[in-house]
């Protein structure tokens, strides 16, 4: 028998144990002081002559000067893409196109750690995620679409698929490399050339990717990377020689792009915001569900368009779920993105932190009950403690609006019908989660939830073979899988 006194002392010591810092080395990747635009296979100074500073959000320290591409720069990039399309890429045998993409996939695998470190430094996401999720998936995406390049006739029988031309692609800051892969891989596999704009706050991995293209000896102009803020994106959207726009980002900007393209005949796919329901039934494996809830909303600081930001718990297990959830939240480690033990990294930008803060305040003001585990945040940088709101009404802003941060709103239901009705009560429809041991209930719920992706007994899982995209105001078009090729092809019918 362990004496009570000793047992108590041991417990006290255990509770003070902390993880030793386990930082990933920064020097694996070299950051230049200043970057130009990647146009026609080389870095060029921006005609705009403008640069801005991109930072490390975990330390609020500048990392590099990055070009702010203007109208003339975008025009130059589109010309390079058009020329590459006309002279090389569309003339190349599809099997050769495939091999370039395989090369890119392999080089990304080889240099994955460099990219992971840079991704975490520039974006604030934990190295554990950039290393184990973002980069492996990005490489897998190129590998998957590489194989499609010379098999398009089998993907679309009787349709004579052909490329569209120049694709303008605008990606967000939450998964910079993964979104780059989602955009570039299918576009190139289908035979198009690309002008891609990374997000304003996270341009560095896209710029490092240019070195992968150099190593792969991709013909110049097939991929052009132009950096800048929303003005640069607007120039891409407005350029008359861009045949297709692919955008991932906010619903507000997506609508503006759709309006801007009205009447132009340009092809468009939109992957926009979400306010996903994560529905937990009383027969769910509770511990597994709690892990899924945590992964659903605190993964990547909640900067995930498909985040499970509305948790619906069946009333009979409400108390058990909430207490388990709070206990689990208290073990989340918030801090240095480069530390291998970190679960929740830095908020991507000051602007995003302000948005999260103001929406959380609205939740408090509207009457929801807030819980945040005790948590020591670093002094510098942008941070937000993982937060859960209970006592939430469907009408509250925190239950309606996309927060895009580590903030969960918990609501309850009694019957499956009520769960479906509440879950679908949103203009969004990107994703949903279902937790139950019953396979038939999984499928019945999946049929009734209006969402493009439904995860059962898991959450935030991605795969290059699995189509991803939204219903309703979460956008249109699919990325991933066979279906992800179609937006980059034209058909003779």
């Amino acid at each position, binding site marked *: 028998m362990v004496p009570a006194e000793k047992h108590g002392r041991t417990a006290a010591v255990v509770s003070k144990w902390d993880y030793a810092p386990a930082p990933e080395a920064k020097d694996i990747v070299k950051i230049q002081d200043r970057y130009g635009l990647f146009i026609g296979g080389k870095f060029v100074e921006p005609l705009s002559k403008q640069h801005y500073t991109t930072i490390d959000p975990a330390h609020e320290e500048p990392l590099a000067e990055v070009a702010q591409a203007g109208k003339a720069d975008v025009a130059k990039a589109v010309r390079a893409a058009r020329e590459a399309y006309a002279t090389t890429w569309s003339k190349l045998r599809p099997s050769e196109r495939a091999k370039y993409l395989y090369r890119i996939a392999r080089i990304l695998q080889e240099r994955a750690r460099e990219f992971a470190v840079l991704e975490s430094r520039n974006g604030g996401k934990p190295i554990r995620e950039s290393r184990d999720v973002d980069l492996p998936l990005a490489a897998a995406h190129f590998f998957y679409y590489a194989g499609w390049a010379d098999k398009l006739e089998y993907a679309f029988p009787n349709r004579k698929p052909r490329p569209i031309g120049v694709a303008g692609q605008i990606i967000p800051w939450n998964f910079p490399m993964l979104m780059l892969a989602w955009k570039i891989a299918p576009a190139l596999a289908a035979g198009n050339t690309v002008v891609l704009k990374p997000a304003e706050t996270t341009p560095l991995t896209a710029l490092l990717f240019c070195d992968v293209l150099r190593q792969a000896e991709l013909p110049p102009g097939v991929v052009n990377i132009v950096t800048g803020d929303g003005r640069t994106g607007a120039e891409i959207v407005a350029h008359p020689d861009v045949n297709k726009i692919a955008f991932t980002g906010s619903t507000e900007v997506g609508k503006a792009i759709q309006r801007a393209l009205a009447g132009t005949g340009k092809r468009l796919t939109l992957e926009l915001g979400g306010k996903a329901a994560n529905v937990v039934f009383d027969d769910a494996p509770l511990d597994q569900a709690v892990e899924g809830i945590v992964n659903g909303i605190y993964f990547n600081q909640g900067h995930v368009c498909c985040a499970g930001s509305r948790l619906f718990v069946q009333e009979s297990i409400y108390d058990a779920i909430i207490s388990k959830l709070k206990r689990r939240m208290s073990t989340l480690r918030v801090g240095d993105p480069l530390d291998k033990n970190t679960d929740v990294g830095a908020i991507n930008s000051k602007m995003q932190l302000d948005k999260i803060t103001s929406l959380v305040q609205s939740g408090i003001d509207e009457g929801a009950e807030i819980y945040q585990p005790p948590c020591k945040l670093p002094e510098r940088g942008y941070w937000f403690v993982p937060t859960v709101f209970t006592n939430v009404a469907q009408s509250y802003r925190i239950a309606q609006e996309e927060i895009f941060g580590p903030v969960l709103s918990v609501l309850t239901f009694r019957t499956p019908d009520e769960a479906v009705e509440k879950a679908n009560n949103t203009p969004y429809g990107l994703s949903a989660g279902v937790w139950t041991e019953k396979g038939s209930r*999984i499928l019945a719920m999946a049929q009734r939830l209006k969402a493009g992706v439904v995860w059962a007994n898991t959450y935030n899982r991605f795969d290059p073979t*699995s189509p991803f995209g939204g219903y309703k105001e*979460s956008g249109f078009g699919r990325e991933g899988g066979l*279906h992800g090729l179609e937006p980059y092809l034209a058909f003779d*019918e």
Partner: protein
Amino acid sequence: MTRLAVRKTYKLYIGGAFPRSESGRTLVVEGANIARASRKDLRDAVRIARQAGAGWWGMTAYNRGQVLYRIAEMMEDRHAALSAASSEAEVSRAIDRVVWYAGWADKLAQTVGSSNPVAGPYFNFTVPEPTGVVGIIAPQKPALLGLVSRVLPVIVGGNAVVVIASETHPLAAIELAECLATADVPGGVVNILTGQRAELAPVLASHMDVAALDLAGADGDAAELERLGAENVKRVVHGHPDRQSLYEITPFLELKTVWHPVGM
């Protein structure tokens, strides 16, 4: 004594019934008094279509296929009346087109869906689903074949529709509505409005409960209607007035991907 013929009153087709316009307005087109639908009629039709869509999609694909095939049977039966509003050749082609689309009802999931070999213990599959209420601006001509070519590919996917009929040739639309009403198409799955397109189209394009917009019959105002459609991220489609293809169906389908766990 020659017998005086009993004439038909041409009305709207909303929720499976044939109401006059709530506005009481009519127009003289093709020699008949045609109901001139109001914006209120259109909003009512969208509300009813939204309700009817769930039931239509809830039917089995086999059953939906039979109902659609039944439309062709009813059209064959009313060949003469339909021909009077179009032409015999057009009616024959329209009937054959209905039969062709009816056959797709229970083949879409196999043709458009997929199972996806994800790297993990999940059965991952993608299935097509209806996008919701679809607003259709029908082509002016061919009035019957154009209408059939736009409505059938949309409803075979499980959507409900609100159609603004040809403004210049509305009689064919009403004749077709009578075939739909007798073919066991559930009330509200197809709603047809006659009247002035310029008055109705912007309301349809900007309606927040309309999920997709088919601008087959739009002309000068297409860009403006597209712009209005962006307000709720509508799927905007420029449907072909006379083409028979699986790919006239697919723009009105959503793709849902499900990750189902695999384990003992």
